[in-house]
């Protein structure tokens, strides 16, 4: 029983990171109706920003409490990736704004490959794995005699919750959030209300990329090694999480992330019972994708969209 609870907790922590990344997919889909396949690479760039910022700023912040240096590194990485996300949209997607959506989708895959292979160049990040510094001191918190969470896991969870609350505030209570929701419902009408749609789209890319950067640092804190391709699999799983929750639906993305994280961890923990290697856990998300596309393509919380004739 306690082993099960432990697996459940581990899954929850991993899932909360998937949720952060999934939000970026779902928000961009909301405003532009396409899947930004380069989003997983922004997640990777976030982890690398954390790595380098720590290398450069770490000595300067040596005397400070780790929570302060973590916050500084996290916020700076989020700002850097927000700027990169806005730049990617401006250079790659904006020129295709009124073209068929397939063109944009293919461009997104191109942008993704470009970032990954540029990252492999020795002058950029290099192809070898680098170990990610322990921004959060390792420490086990025992809940019961056999149930424990690490310090890192707790910080991951608390950070994700704080970011989700902040996001909800932005989307539901601010003028920009209202414009985002209006734009995703009807871009023509939002333009007729005086909304500069391009600004809102840039904002959405910035917001999603900032969340991906936070996800990158948190993920690298849980699994402390980084390399230019590290964004592919978490990115795909987060994309599936967004589809599972109902693409375009913000609470759905968070829910989908948690479900994928928990299912994956449980399968990893118990696959040996039915004689499967633990490596199968990486396939779970894709099985879920196939099932959801077969039985409920609009996702768990998504509404079926009626096509206008």
């Amino acid at each position, binding site marked *: 029983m306690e082993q099960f609870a432990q697996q459940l907790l581990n899954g929850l922590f991993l899932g909360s990171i998937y949720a952060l990344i999934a939000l970026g997919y779902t928000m961009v889909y909301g405003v532009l109706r396409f899947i930004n396949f380069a989003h997983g690479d922004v997640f990777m760039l976030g982890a690398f920003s954390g790595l380098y910022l720590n290398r450069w700023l770490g000595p300067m912040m040596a005397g400070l409490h780790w929570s302060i240096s973590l916050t500084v590194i996290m916020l700076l990485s989020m700002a850097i990736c927000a700027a990169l996300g806005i730049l990617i949209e401006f250079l790659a997607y904006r020129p295709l704004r009124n073209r068929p959506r397939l063109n944009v989708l293919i461009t997104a895959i191109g942008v993704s490959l470009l970032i990954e292979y540029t990252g492999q160049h020795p002058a950029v990040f290099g192809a070898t794995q680098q170990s990610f510094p322990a921004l959060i001191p390792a420490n086990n918190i025992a809940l019961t005699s056999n149930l424990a969470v690490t310090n890192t896991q707790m910080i991951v969870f608390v950070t994700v919750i704080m970011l989700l609350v902040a996001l909800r505030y932005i989307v539901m209570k601010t003028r920009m959030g209202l414009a985002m*929701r209006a734009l995703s419902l009807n871009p023509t009408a939002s333009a*007729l*209300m005086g*909304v*500069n749609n391009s600004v809102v789209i840039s904002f959405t890319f910035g917001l999603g990329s900032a969340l991906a950067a936070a996800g990158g640092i948190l993920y690298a804190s849980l699994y402390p090694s980084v390399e230019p391709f590290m964004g592919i699999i978490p990115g795909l799983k987060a994309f599936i999480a967004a589809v599972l929750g109902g693409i375009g639906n913000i609470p759905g993305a968070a829910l989908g992330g948690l479900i994928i994280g928990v299912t994956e961890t449980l399968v990893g923990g118990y696959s040996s019972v039915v004689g499967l290697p633990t490596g199968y856990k990486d396939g779970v998300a894709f099985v879920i994708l196939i099932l959801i596309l077969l039985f409920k393509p609009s996702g768990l919380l998504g509404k079926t969209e009626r096509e206008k004739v």
Partner: protein
Amino acid sequence: MLEVSNLEVSYGSIRALHGVSLKVPEKSIVTLIGANGAGKSSTLRALSGLIKARAGTVVYGGEEITNLAPHKIVARGLCQVPEGRMIFPNLTIDENLRMGAFLRRDAKAIAADMDYAFTIFPRLLERRKQLAGTMSGGEQQMLAIARALLSKPKFLMLDEPSLGIAPLLVKSIFEKIVEINRTTGLTILLVEQNANLALEVSNYAYVLETGKVILEGPSVEVKANPQVQAAYLGI
């Protein structure tokens, strides 16, 4: 107040407007009538900057606004209630109205204008917290008009406000439009297929056919024109 000269619009190789010219004087209601596909909506879409004009000019208050971005045109006080209403179905009535006031920062004046909108359309007040998509077509049209009023426009364009709405409600919505014009002096450009109604409430009318103005004049005269009576009024 608004002067359009030789406006041309095309969708790909299909020409929708072949040089439309019209004038809308301040505080008047001017109507644009014509059959389906005559170019009425294309004219409004070009005025709002939603489609690019290939040729021609739009001058508003002495300044040229041809082909400005839609949000810049709204900022100058020209607002459109688009065909099919285009309310935001998953936002509440309140949020829809707040979207109307998107470019304004004066919270007090916005609240006052919301109250004004609610006195004209009391139905909206009852449903403030409800999602807009749950209302009937007529109520959605009221919301679309109220939302546009919240931008505090100086010039309001209405595209087929009667489309798909119960006849009884149509009458009441048109009465409201006239009331808004009388009490606030708001200039209105009205596009309608229901020519009878449009000619009744307007001061001046243009008749559009295949992208050209074929007839214009004070609404009373246009209404008495035998050609118009035969083609559009079913007399």
